């Protein structure tokens, strides 16, 4: 029972962490432009070229 008293709050806390992370992505506009983000990964940064 003791271990339950420790694990239960921990699992709820981890769940809350997930909700918090989701809230963060939402408020930082991560879902504003899905197709743009998918395309951007293909673009090279101009500074990144080998010398």
């Amino acid at each position: 029972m003791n271990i339950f008293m420790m694990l239960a709050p921990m699992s709820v806390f981890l769940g809350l962490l997930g909700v918090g992370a989701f809230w963060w992505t939402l408020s930082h506009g991560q879902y504003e432009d899905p197709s743009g983000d998918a395309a951007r990964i293909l673009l090279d940064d101009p500074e990144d070229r080998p010398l």
Partner: protein
Amino acid sequence: MAVSHDLSPAVDLTAFLKRRPDAAPTFELRVKGARCAACLGKIERETAALPGVTSARLNLTNGKLTVAFDSLADADPGAVVLRLENLGYPATPYDPAQAADALDREGRRLVLCLAVAAFGAMNTMMFSVPLWAGLFGQELGPATRVVMQWWCALVATPCALYAGRPFFESAWRSLKRRRANMDVPISIGVLLTLGISFSETLLRGRDAYFDAAVSLLFLLLIGRWLDHQLKLRARSAASDLLALQAPAATVVGEDGVERRQPISEVEVGDVLIVRPGERIPVDALVQSGSSEIDNALLTGETAPVPLRPGHVCRAGALNLSGVVHLQALARSEDSAVAAIARLVEAGAQSKSKYVQLADRAASIYVPVVHSAALLTFAGGWIVGLGPREAILRAVAVLIITCPCALGLAVPAVQISASARLFRRGVLVKSGAALERLAEVDHVVFDKTGVLTEGRPKVLDAPASTIALAAPLARASSHPLSRALAAEAGPGPCADAVIEHPGLGVEGIIDGRRARLGRAEFVGVSGRANLETELWFAFQGETKIRFRFSDRLRPDAAETVAALAARGLSVEILSGDAPFPVAMAAEGAGISTWRGGLTPIEKSEAILALQSEGRRVLMVGDGLNDAAALARADAAMAPGTALDASQNAADLVFSGEALGAVVDAIDVARQARRRALENFSFAALYNLIAAPAAMLGLMNPFVAALAMSGSSLAVTLNALRLRRRA
């Protein structure tokens, strides 16, 4: 006079800058044609390289480019538009007033509620699964059960109170207006469930339904979010269409500098310049220049009208051939369009009186369910159960009948129906529109631009004659010339072309001087000048006449036949002269038609049909149709329609095919069938579950199982609509 259609770099677009007191000004444009990573990189790089630009970011999902400038003094939005045009991406500035409300607060809130409900449902489940095991005689001491129940309460209660807010607020608003919508039983159900679960936990009972309360909200929020997505997509598509119409006017200042301004900022007395291909922004008096205007979208007339100094032209007319200087006679909201806008508003109000299927279901459902719960309580008491047991059973009835499946039944159907129509090129603006469309039994078509293609085609001229005149036609922007050029296909252009506004074009073909235009311009005298013909001649040679007519859409007759086969009656209401309307009616196989109608008469004709008990679908594109579109039970407009008409319409179809009307009606009818199936499924489920709850056969496990099972069944039934594309 040579005519240019490009935005000249001299045009000042600073009115479209979004000014913020504490930060650098930004400029928002809608860019057409950007689809891939290469486009994105090119646009951002090239725009950011312009002087005065600090950053440029393109949203590939909605095509919106946001450009930030150093300072107001350095900002040159015109250069951005020009650079994009040169790169091959036509761009239109967003009205700063419209762009402001693009932030989707409501959607974010729903997603956050959904996330909280999901967290709540899953974490409550963690504690309720052992409780369910306890119900089936597994080892679970009373102390452990209480601990588990308290954990459930701790997680579920805050989550349910937070995630339920959209429902509580909507229910409260509805109750204040003394009506009961679907959210009322949802809210009562959730709050009662939480309350009774608390009392059970305190009294050491076994029936705590915390998990049911949150998972119910989770499932309902999915439905609510789907519904919101549907509305959002339609709204953003509509505002994109608006942005593409570029609600801007070119105003000539006292210093002679041209400025692009939002139409709403044009004042009476301003001098405006309107180039060929642009629309007249406000009612205005022609000061200088001559041209022809196309009133097709305003009145439905197909023939262009000549425009000379001293004439008055109405907002919305399309300038065809010459550059004209105008003096504004009215502000945008006082222009002739405004009267139509008021009619549109009145029509939209009558439309909002339509009660949606789900609310109609709710108005029967709510009293039945609540009296069933009351009956259970009273009956239980009479039969001899204790008050606690009687209350528990009554609440169990409320929980099990909470309209979870109903909340999903309609949005799930509507979203799959509109996704299917979207693939066919039909944009659905609201779910209610589909419901209204399904009930339609009479279809009214406008003629110009709906039944017909809305642009002239050459009538029976041999290809060799067309080829003779084609080099001159290619050099002109007049619609008749363009029709001629389109008929001839690509080829050489005439040299030294001069466009004489309102008369025609003159140029040199193979060393010979030639003219194309009105009869007197080409040198034909003594003929009544018809607006639907064009004359061509080499200097001193025989004059050739081309005649034009607005052709029916290729599938017009087929569409009318298909509508008739579905039991719908068809009619034409047009603002054009009776003769062309009769021709079009004959061609399309429509026996009932009326021509020469004013916008108000059109709207009244619809009203008369409605008072006979008909449900009318109006298909129209012009400003003269806007009032009728708003008045009709359901309305469709082609993608080429004027923005006012697209706003008044419930569905907008793109492409050439009129068959979209038939498709839309078919899908709407199917969607209605699915929604009714879902309702009857939900009713059947309640018919079995509610008596079981009354008899006390309900426990938390059965409640959870029954609720998610019914929601799943309803959603899967809705998805069937999507598959049969």
